[in-house]
């Protein structure tokens, strides 16, 4: 074997990735070739350095809990989707009928898109209830608003509604439709309300009203921002809450 043949195989030889016959041929060449021997030794010491010195990053303990609760949230949502399976079949039938009738697929896409966003918001809310901590804990709107600077590429409006019985609890970052969004968290007795905020040109808004599994969602657009309030609070009180935020 020549150097040109041997050199590309040195790594594979060290990794035990070539067969015995080829290995023997490579070894025989290396023994009589100082340049290949130097290269082989260099590969060996890099491998040793990595194996000895590179630190295996163990998952922090809180990550295990976080992953577990996210999984339980997903499982819950999947279960509820199964329970309402007949609705899905109904929707599929409706899609088929409309397609046959020649309804514009674009309208359906837009609608499905909105539905998907609503589903995603609900699952983000449930995940948060299942154990994600708030990223910023504060009842002061002047603490919460600046916290989002640099974390989302926009500045969400933060209003404290303690006087109206909806105290601000804090905020966190969330991901919806592949975008980072701001989530403001309010309380109402023992209920929690998430208000998701993003610029209206960034992505689709969910339907203005949406209800599933006892969770209510109300969505509106104000000052070129989409706001969506999600909670297990009853629809009437959530409406009151939304109208307070809708005030100019």
């Amino acid at each position, binding site marked *: 074997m020549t150097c040109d043949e041997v050199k590309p195989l040195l*790594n594979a030889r060290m990794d035990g990735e070539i067969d015995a016959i080829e290995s023997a041929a490579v070894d025989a060449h290396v023994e009589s070739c100082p340049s290949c021997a130097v290269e082989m030794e260099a590969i060996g010491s890099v491998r040793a350095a990595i*194996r000895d*010195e590179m630190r*295996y990053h*163990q998952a922090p303990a809180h*990550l295990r809990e976080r992953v577990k609760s996210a999984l339980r949230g997903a499982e819950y949502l999947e279960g509820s989707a199964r329970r309402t399976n007949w609705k899905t079949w109904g929707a599929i039938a409706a899609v088929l009928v409309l397609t046959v009738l020649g309804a514009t697929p674009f309208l359906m896409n837009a609608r499905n898109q909105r539905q998907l966003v609503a589903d995603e918001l609900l699952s983000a809310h449930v995940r948060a209830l299942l154990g994600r901590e708030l990223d910023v804990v504060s009842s002061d709107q002047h603490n919460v608003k600046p916290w989002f600077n640099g974390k989302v590429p926009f500045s969400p409006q933060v209003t404290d509604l303690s006087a109206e019985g909806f105290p601000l609890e804090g905020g966190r970052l969330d991901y919806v439709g592949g975008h980072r969004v701001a989530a403001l968290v309010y309380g109402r007795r023992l209920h929690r309300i998430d208000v998701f905020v993003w610029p209206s040109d960034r992505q689709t808004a969910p339907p203005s009203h949406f209800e599933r599994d006892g969770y209510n969602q109300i969505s509106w657009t104000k000052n070129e921002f989409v706001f969506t309030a999600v909670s297990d609070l009853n629809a009437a009180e959530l409406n009151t809450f939304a109208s307070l935020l809708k005030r100019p």
Partner: protein
Amino acid sequence: MPALAPTAYPDAISIAESCMSTTKSSAEFDRKFLPHLDAAYNLARFLMRNAHDAEDVVQESYLRAFRAFSGFRGEGSRQWLLTIVRNTSFTWLRDNRSRGGHTEYQEELHVSGDANPETQSIRRERSRAVEHCVEQLPADFREAIVLREMEELSYREIAEITGVPAGTVMSRLARARARLAECLKGSAHDLR
């Protein structure tokens, strides 16, 4: 008189089974995939180069894995999960969702059993140099190094995870090691 077969109440049985199936499959998912949490985190940590993004990527990967679980053949769960982790990581890197920046080097994790403080500090220097050089590698080289040296996967397994031919894995590893050798030569301490 006909024997009372266990299928006498098919409805009751199938209802009970369908009620159990959710819990059963999620318990199975946990049993198969939670043991690989460290491997998932380690790969994500090296690809994202900071702890925050790595944690988010791991969580998202587990959710993706859970949703795709019904299509899982039941073998090679670590590889299957690592494939999802690397795909999620690369999506994040591509979409620039990374928060960037490197996490500070955590001294306390590096203290070895060696009692001699001088030896310890040399060891720390070396670890730091190696880690620094690995972080400088392009992501696909870094990925090959982590999968090969830390997960001890074969070229073929790495090829399956990363979706490239085994020959590409071989050349990435060769080039990654050549770059590492170069970088380590430049670092203050001789490695030997």
